[in-house]
């Protein structure tokens, strides 16, 4: 009956629930977040070169789908851009371990006719823009942060994601931390009830809308902005600096947060304190059962994760992800030992 439901709503999920394992090879299936998909597929293929007998399949069906499939035990591991909620942890029927793999940042992009300068945003102003309270580009709040930039009186059009997304989660998580008002009216989730604006599907949808709408502002993943050479603004961090997102400034956010890292790694590192930190940054996590039924696969997956956290980190930068800081990797390698297998 489960299959029927899936048939009715999505072909994607139906495409690869389980694939048959051949005799000699060890096949491990996982599913989840789309954001880390490029680095995960790179890892799985590189790891396969080192260990030809291990083949890891990953379906990038979204964080929600990944959590669901892990909980239903149709896949061996999951992946998510937002940590599981306490209710989800309870429904999992066994302890689930979160392990951060790489980091990503989210950047504000805009299209203001006649303005080439890189704009500076503070968290509060960004929140007010997204809430629709600041609705003209020459509003005193924006002009005050950007002296010397000649801003036009164009209406601001807010462009957001129409699909549920980890990118949205990181962005609204940050805005909720810096603006109590935003927290109250919108809140934090992968999809939210936006007070104003238009929605585009995927990073490309939002980028397309921003590019085509004079006066638009939106948010995309840092990787997407870098790869497509889209200019983006800087955001003020807790230390008061205006920081432009980069591979380094995102890693700095994780390093700053590592001193207060909870044992289960379920932590939001948006608005992290410290100098040089880009405030709209986040981990992305792999999900494992601490005591899985299949000890053989668990053993192989642990070896893979150890490799990904150490050797594998070198692939992060070239794909636009930020590698984990040493301090976090060390904590994770200890935590990895707790998984049975």
């Amino acid at each position, binding site marked *: 009956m489960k299959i029927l439901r899936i048939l009715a709503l999505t072909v*994607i999920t139906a495409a690869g629930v389980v694939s048959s394992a051949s005799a000699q090879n060890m096949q491990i299936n996982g599913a989840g977040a789309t954001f880390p998909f490029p680095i995960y597929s790179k890892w799985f293929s590189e790891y396969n070169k080192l260990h030809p007998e291990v083949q890891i399949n990953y379906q990038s069906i979204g964080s929600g789908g990944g959590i*669901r499939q892990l909980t239903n035990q149709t896949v061996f591991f999951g992946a998510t851009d937002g940590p599981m909620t306490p209710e989800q942890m309870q429904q999992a029927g066994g302890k689930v371990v979160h392990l951060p793999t790489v980091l990503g940042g989210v950047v504000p992009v805009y299209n203001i006719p006649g303005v080439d300068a890189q704009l500076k945003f503070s968290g509060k102003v960004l929140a007010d823009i997204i809430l629709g309270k600041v609705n003209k580009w020459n509003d005193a709040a924006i002009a005050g942060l950007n002296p010397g930039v000649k801003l036009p009186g164009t209406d601001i059009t807010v462009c957001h994601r129409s699909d*549920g997304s980890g990118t949205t989660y990181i962005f609204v998580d940050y805005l909720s931390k810096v603006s109590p008002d935003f927290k109250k009216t919108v809140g934090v989730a992968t999809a939210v009830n936006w007070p104003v*604006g238009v929605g585009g599907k995927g990073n490309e949808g939002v980028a397309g809308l921003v590019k085509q709408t004079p006066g638009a502002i939106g948010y995309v993943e840092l990787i997407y902005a870098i790869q497509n050479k889209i200019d983006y603004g800087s955001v003020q961090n807790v230390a008061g600096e205006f920081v432009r997102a980069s591979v380094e400034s995102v890693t700095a956010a994780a390093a700053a947060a590592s001193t207060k890292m909870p044992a289960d790694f379920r932590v939001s590192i948006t608005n992290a304190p410290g100098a040089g930190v880009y405030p709209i940054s986040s981990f992305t996590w792999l999900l494992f059962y601490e005591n899985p039924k299949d000890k053989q696969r668990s053993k192989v997956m642990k070896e893979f994760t150890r490799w990904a956290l150490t050797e594998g980190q070198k692939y992060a930068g070239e794909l636009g992800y930020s590698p984990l800081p040493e301090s976090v990797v060390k904590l994770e390698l200890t935590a990895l030992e707790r998984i049975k297998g």
Partner: protein
Amino acid sequence: MAIRKTPSPRRSADDRGFRLGTGFFALLVVLLVAGIGFELFRTSELTIAKFGFNFWRTKTWDPVSGEFGALPFIWGTLYSSVLAMLISTPIAIGIAIFLSELSPGRLRTPLTFLTELLAAIPSIVYGLWGIFVLVPVVRHLEVLTPPWLKKVPLFSGPPLGVGMLSAALILAIMVIPFSSSVAREVLRAVPATQREAAYALGATRWEAIRAALSYGRTGIMGAVMLGFGRALGETMAVTMVIGNNPQVSASLFAPQHTMSAVIANEFTEAADDLYLSALIEIGLVLFVLTVVINGISRFLIWRTGRVVVAEEHVPEPLAASGASA
């Protein structure tokens, strides 16, 4: 459904086996539809129990606080589809008339091929074309809208380009080949004697065409309804240009949302049970609406068919073939 008797007197076991086999396949379709309906209902129990009928008529869609109302999506789906039909129907029927009655023979085949080619273009391509070509044009039109016209609710709102008008236009283009090719087939099925009779009575060409249209109106209505069904379910191209903002607005310029678009957009990341259930219930609503609208259109076709028969004494086989179109 009735199986015709074979003229041959010999009826082997193979015959029966064949009949049972094909009957089973036909039954599969029924089972599949019932299964989908049942499963949609079963998996959306959570929201059905929590919101009841309010799900159909409230406007808030807030996954954070767990409040779900489907009205903006129902509205967006129906509004965009009806608009698309208003735009596409005259064009589709015009194409059908030209191709079946007026076009020179040399033009007919390439034109028919080109219209049907429109149906073969994947909807994502329409979507991309919509974003890069149609939306800027629509935005330009919106900018040019005079202020007095902007006061009319139909044209209110800032010039975004994306929104209801873009969605309706793209849907109209997408359904034209469906409606027009069926309508063309219907017109071609009108017996030549009908036109000859009209000319014999001294009718002009236009009057003869009108007679043919009236003769085939059942089938033409079927053609339009086929297009409507297509417009209701279209997802990808619409979500790329409609703006995906769940609001109930009469304005053509306002960004809105549709049922299929919200499912496609939000399903993958819907992690908690209530949210998932709400999305599946949207699927159920869409399913129910499609069944109801198809039912109504069948009824209309059946009624026009009857009226035609009563008024004009159409021979039975043609009315039947029109209804099945």
